[in-house]
């Protein structure tokens, strides 16, 4: 698998290195979207025979929805969600007790923040998938949300189903949706602070209990070679 595609341009992923598979149907679809939205289409990515990603500029987010429903006849609203690309500072929390108790807060090398298919340069990214039952195709739209202004305009007037999904994204990530009729909590109790699905939100269940996987096989009496357990 080649590393993630660069921001600009369309790269067709060559799954098997022999022949570069071309997926005409999805490329035609991409042409339609690019023709309609013009330069608002910042990036795109096609996995042949599987899916088409299109990243649009935040301003054209509502226009993309209207075009998908009208031009592409994507009347089926599948889902809308968000991705927080910040690498998690807690890792798998397996050694959290260990590192705090024994090594103090060790500074793991903060891995570089990458973004997935069709690129993306901000921390938060909203993604939505809409499909067409009549024509049998589906498109995954993505848009970047700059860190200082976490607002995207809502899809509710176009797809009524987006109501609950946007409420969930607002609650879990903190991205608010301009024009949403009823932005309240959907899962969490009313007085819940913080946005759980953000990567910097700690998963408390794992920090409270010591990890049973820590190897504490005492050394051989008198051997005293490596202090910690073997087979780490």
């Amino acid at each position, binding site marked *: 698998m080649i590393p993630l595609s660069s921001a600009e341009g369309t790269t067709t992923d060559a799954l098997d290195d022999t022949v570069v598979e071309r997926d005409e149907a999805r490329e035609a679809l991409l042409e339609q979207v690019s023709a309609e939205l013009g330069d608002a289409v910042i990036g795109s990515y096609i996995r042949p025979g599987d899916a088409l990603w299109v990243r649009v500029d935040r301003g054209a987010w509502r226009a993309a929805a209207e075009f998908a429903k009208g031009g592409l006849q994507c009347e089926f609203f599948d889902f809308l969600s968000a991705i927080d690309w910040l690498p998690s500072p807690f890792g798998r929390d*397996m050694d959290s007790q260990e590192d705090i108790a024994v090594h103090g807060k060790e500074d793991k090398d903060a891995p570089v923040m990458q973004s997935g298919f069709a690129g993306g340069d901000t921390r938060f990214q909203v993604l939505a998938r809409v499909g067409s039952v009549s024509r049998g195709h589906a498109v995954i739209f993505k848009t970047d949300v700059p860190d200082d202004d976490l607002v995207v305009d809502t899809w509710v007037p176009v797809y009524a189903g987006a109501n609950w999904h946007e409420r969930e994204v607002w609650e879990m990530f903190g991205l608010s949706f301009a024009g949403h009729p009823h932005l309240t909590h959907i899962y969490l109790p009313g007085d819940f602070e913080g946005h759980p699905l953000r990567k910097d939100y700690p998963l408390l269940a794992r920090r409270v*209990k010591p*990890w*049973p*996987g820590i*190897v*504490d*096989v*005492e*050394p*051989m009496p008198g*051997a005293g070679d490596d202090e910690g*357990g073997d*087979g780490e």
Partner: protein
Amino acid sequence: MPKVPGLIKGLGVTFGEMVKTLRDGPVTVQYPHVKEEPTPRARGVIALYEENCTACMLCSRECPDWCIYIEAHKYLAPPRREGGKPRQKNALDRFDIDFSLCMFCGICVEVCPFEALYWTPEYEFSELKIADLIHDKSRLGQWMETVPDFEAYEAGSEAKVKKVPKP
């Protein structure tokens, strides 16, 4: 057959069911007196075959619920051939599975490289106090007798049948 109105057909179904239950017995059994046999592969409780366990901690690391607690110490085992170097082996001090946390997913049994953990279809180990649900090494050993032998596979399968070490 003229279309019997739905209401009458419904009555017929329940009456037929009553006759069938009276004739060849109900489907349910009276639990404490008659017990239904779970299938041999049912995941009732985990049994530990201590000889195979080398305290490699793989199961307690892979367990999603963090409910396997292992403590072991090293000791010098006599060399296999005389004149050979004494081998360093792990002796198991504590191997507890906390069945109040366990969700019976079977990752530990599957991931154990030395086949020390087995499933038994036993399901009657409920306790009054939740603390008693932590089965220690000896209790897990006792479950070993109830482990059924692995069944033969269906025709056309290439998997080989594993054996259960009898203590």
